[in-house]
């Protein structure tokens, strides 16, 4: 089983809040892989809206997405797209 880790910088001007957070969780839930998101010392389930919101990742902050499972590579690619949306 693949374990993929990727460090990313949040580009969205709202940070990982509001719509981007909801979008992130909706996409994450489409995959079987276990998805974890790290920011500073917090580590949360990437499929949980409460978790993502609790991260409080502002624009410009660095997060790490970890995905473990058969579809991990696709999952990380898709989630990266959301992190990269600027508006």
């Amino acid at each position, binding site marked *: 089983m693949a374990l993929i880790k990727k460090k990313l910088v949040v580009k969205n001007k*709202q940070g990982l*809040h*509001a719509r981007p957070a*909801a979008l992130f*969780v*909706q996409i994450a*839930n489409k995959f079987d892989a276990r998805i974890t998101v790290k920011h500073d010392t917090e580590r*949360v*389930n990437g*499929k*949980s*809206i*409460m*978790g993502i*919101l*609790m991260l*409080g990742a502002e624009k410009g902050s660095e997060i790490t997405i970890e995905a473990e499972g058969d579809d991990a590579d696709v999952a990380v690619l898709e989630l990266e797209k959301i992190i990269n949306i600027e*508006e």
Partner: protein
Amino acid sequence: MIRIKGIAAAGGISVGPAYKIGREEFVVPKQPIRPEEVPIQIQLFEEALIKTRKEIVGLQKRIAVELGQEQAEIFDAHLLVLEDRMLIEEVILRLKQECVNVAYIFSEVLKKYINVFSKIEDEYLKERVTDINDVGKRILHNLLGKERKGFEDLKEKVVVVAHDLSPSDTAAMHKQSVCAFVTDIGGKTSHTAIMAKALEIPAVVGVEEATAKIKAGDILIVDGGTGTIIINPDEETLRTYQQEDDKLKGIAEVFLTAKDLPAVTLDGKSIEIVANIELPEEVPSVKLHGGQGIGLYRTEFFYMNRKDLPSEEEHYQAYKYVAEEMNPLPVIIRTLDLGGDKFLSQFEIPKDMQPFLGWRAIRFCLARPDIFKVQLRAILRASVHGKLKLMYPMISGIEELQQAKKILQEAKKELKSKGLPFDNDIKVGAMIEVPSAAMTADLLAREADFFSIGTNDLIQYSLAVDRTNEKVAYLYEPAHPAVLRLIKNIIEAAHDAGIWVGMCGEMAGEPALVLVLLGLGLDEFSVPPLVIPKVKYIIRSIKLSDAQAIAKEVLKLSTGKEVQKFSQAKLRKILG
């Protein structure tokens, strides 16, 4: 009798007894369970989740049919919370570890999240707390096997008073049982305010001490248009409001018959009846009430309750939506009108001694072309999606109008250089709300494509009355001869120059004065969506020539009271 003020969230006047909704706490008894009972508890939890999901989806479908897809989307956030894996996993894990009833554990986990989110300084997250609360309560009710007591059960017409109301609470309110609502917190753009507007239930939010000052059963007058609540009014006040209310309700039905008919006088003069709106969400209501366009789209809310400035894209998306939805009907966007009684939250605007005479509206925009141009570019870009016009607030002389138009030209040039399309012939109007503008309307008419008379400010400036000051509020008279003469002057100057004149102040929706304004030659009446059928009905009930005769008579009278009395009598005669 006590008067309290809040934020006017949804217009209309209602009188009724206060029905208080307490802040529901999650008080769930803690009961130990045996380890072998854990699977049963998990099953109970899952069943409660499924039942809650069904409830929310059902509610969402109902709202989609009744209020439209956009309102229904609010519940998407609820479903996300409901299906939250972290929440579910934490409950199940703790259930196994602690061996106590699942309802108790769930309420503890819920409290934890609400605590965390409440502490984060973020408007969006604060609103999510309401969602979490709302969903949490539904799940708990289902876990405990209790029937959820909703507004569906209210039998008499009440004014709901609460610290806060969840979107599903407001959505479940029926007009048969709730006549108004009042909350301690919330702003003009909170879900509940938007819902209340869509439901046409008068609402005042952000009253701060509403639940502290109002006792259950207190008789309340709620004026959602001004944000005023009167607790236990004296008989005279109550009578005045109630008479007004009954009268309005009695004839509202009759007025509604006119909503889809054209606004044409008995002798064939066509008048435009359009709407005042503040939020794009009000567009369906404009259409529903037969609005022939939007005469005033206020844009201040973009700037309020936030730390950063709205982006051009944000403006653009909203204007594009409204333009497309209303197309081919016209939409007049008023550029930023802040100051006076409306403040920007992100600017430290120095507190003027007399804010209404201070640095506001067009004065602010001309001083800050950087901010002004963002909005102008967005309006221009959106102008290709419908029939947009724009107007500048608080013009006091011709130089301001010229300067504003110059900045508009610059905005056009910027778009051209980027190759972005816009309507080069976009019509530009001036709001006439300062006496100096009213007196020099002939000069301004040379630079404007149309006028819109803003009566709220025109009246307070010409009569020197701060209407937020209770001691002098009685002097605030729309029918004052000075006001009528100014209006007459504005209309005549405009017509001489070949441009049309509208009115977007509250005066345009006062039935008796509609006759006078029609007689004075007003071409367009812009009123709240709910008022459109009424104005149409009145216009359809009179000949223009008779209205002109009324206006002529009224101009000979010497006080506002006489004007009111005279025109009220005429109105009664016309409406039978």
